[in-house]
């Protein structure tokens, strides 16, 4: 009755075949990473040296200067004293609890990741908005990037580039980029048809339409996407610490393995504080630049 066992057991492929597939794929990828790993690493070298430079800059500058510059930046972006004081107090508390260096490392990598995600994500989003075909091709990839467990795509990245900052950055960017792409696409598609038609009717070139109508009008949506991207990048910090990215994630990882509750909590809170800083500052910057959306302002 062996030939009827498919009724009770799933007729899966034999272990041997599966092993064969795995061996071939793993082998092919290993060969690929051996053959091209060095070139790819060399390609990312400028990024690595920038990362190192930026991190050292934040670490080697006296803390009060960094604090001052950050507070100034916050004020410049948000024009709000309240926010400025809040950020300074949180940073002082972080420093007081001995997490200054790790916070600076996380800050540097998050800044670079967010920047990369925006620089790559917005053009991809624009492309998606312009062509339905591009949208139908890219959307499934975004779905995969957002749902695939982060550990899974850490494997090939580590195989290719080893452990360190660059694979960390790549993993964080892959994880965090979908919102900015999706919301750029959505924002541009939601621009009122008649407004766009008006621009065309007055002789706007496609570039003028993009930069003077579509992007400005999509900006609130795009800013929401950037915000999400920042939050997701911060959430990824702990996972990235597994492949040797230094920062607030590493003490958290250590706390998990050793059950250090307080250490984990403090570092977790520091990540939360960073997240809130990024969020409030980017939100109020967005609000300030979108003054036409405020119904009550008097034209100033």
């Amino acid at each position, binding site marked *: 009755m062996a030939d009827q066992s498919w009724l009770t057991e799933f007729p899966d492929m034999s272990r041997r075949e599966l092993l064969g597939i795995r061996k071939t794929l793993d082998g092919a990828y290993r060969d690929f990473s051996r053959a091209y790993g060095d070139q790819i690493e060399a390609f990312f070298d400028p990024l690595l040296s920038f990362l190192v430079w930026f991190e050292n800059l934040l670490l080697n500058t006296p803390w009060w200067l960094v604090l001052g510059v950050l507070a100034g930046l916050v004020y410049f972006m948000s024009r709000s004293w309240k926010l400025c004081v809040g950020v300074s107090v949180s940073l002082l508390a972080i420093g007081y609890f001995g997490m200054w260096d790790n916070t600076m490392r996380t800050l540097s990598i998050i800044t670079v990741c967010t920047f990369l995600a925006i620089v790559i994500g917005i053009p991809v989003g624009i492309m998606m908005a312009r062509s339905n075909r591009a949208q139908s091709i890219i959307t499934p990839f975004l779905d995969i990037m957002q749902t695939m467990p982060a550990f899974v795509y850490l494997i090939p990245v580590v195989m290719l580039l080893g452990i360190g900052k660059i694979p960390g950055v790549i993993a964080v960017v892959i994880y965090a980029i979908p919102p900015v792409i999706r919301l750029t696409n959505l924002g541009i598609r939601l621009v009122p048809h008649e407004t766009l*038609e*008006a621009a*065309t009717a007055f*002789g*706007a070139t496609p570039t*003028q339409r993009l930069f003077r109508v579509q992007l*400005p*009008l999509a900006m609130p949506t795009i800013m929401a996407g950037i915000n999400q991207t920042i939050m997701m990048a911060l959430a990824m910090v702990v996972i990235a610490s597994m492949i040797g990215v230094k920062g607030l994630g590493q003490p958290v990882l250590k706390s998990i393995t050793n059950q250090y509750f307080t250490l984990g909590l403090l570092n977790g809170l520091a990540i939360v504080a960073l997240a809130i800083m990024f969020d409030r500052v980017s939100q109020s910057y967005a609000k300030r630049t979108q003054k*036409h959306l405020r119904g009550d302002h008097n*034209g100033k």
Partner: protein
Amino acid sequence: MENNSTPLIEIESLTQIFGNTPEKVLPKVNDGMSKSDVLATTGHTVGLRDINLSVNRGEIFVIMGLSGSGKSTLIRHFNRLIDPTAGKIKVEGEDILTLSPKELIQFRRHKMSMVFQHFGLMPHHCVLDNVGYGLSIQGKKPSIWKNKAKQWLEVVGLEGYEDQYPSQLSGGQQQRVGLARALCTDAEILLMDEAFSALDPLIRYEMQTQLIELQGKLQKTIIFITHDLDEALRLGDRIAVLKDGEMIQVGTSEDIILNPVDDYVRDFAKDVNRAKALKVKHIMERSKNRVIDCDSAEGLADAFKKHDILVWTKSNQLQGVVSKNRLAAYQAGRIDSPLLHQSSVKEKDYLQTVLPIALLADHHLLPVLDSDNQVIGCLSNDAIAEVLSPSFDAA
């Protein structure tokens, strides 16, 4: 007014079919297959079918139809926001379908501008930047276009609103901004797509008045889309009626009201305020049968053999309206004057301005004068009553 003989815009056998493979469906449409059959057999929608029209320099050409008749689709062909499936669109003799993308942009910047139903303003630009939009994308210096935009804002009566954002203005104000933006590029042709339809009736009337005043000064060529016949009659030098993507009738206001080509146009025209749309010249009696020129009242006696009431002129100067009985009484010395009344109307007066005069004048006859105050005919109350009666049935 030069070049009045050659139309500024000519549209020749324009057809628009919406669907995946319009060119395959085109022969069927050309063979006269009905809109519903085309949709049933091919899944394509016939937007416009074989449209032919010409627009003269300096006129307001109104395209009228109910929603779904294709009027908004049609106006979008004038500046190629939509490209047709077949046909030609000529502006000053040049087929604009042959323009390259760069030439098309230049064409849109300098030849035509457009006003939209829902204004189509840039919400992120202030009013001044909106008005100057056309010039600013042409690469003009801000000092130049800001100045010009300010002037046009004044013309439409919105000075002081320069720094406001569109969302802070009322609908009527927003459409004034839309109008100023369209005028600011000095384009010769103005496309107005249901420009006043989104406004409430009072503001709409005000905007129409403003447009008529502006047109008096600027002499643009205006293509105006509307679903409102009253608006069409008020603004249009000529009116085209569109139904299901086909052009049914093109003509002046009185053509549409007095000579509708079919029941569709007749239904349209039925509820319109004819006293507002028709002028004296459309219903007056042009013959001089009842106009008698002689030096003295006595000379009129002969003419009363045929008519009871006459218009009396002396060396072409209007004296007044005379009746047989009144003349007899005058000749018998019982009254001082043989005249019934001395009222008159101009041929270009609208019926609504004539009505009170007609009601007050005795014996239902009014002399009609041309612009040189010469009597050219007469208007009877019967004619007015006939054309204004609810049961009026156009030929």
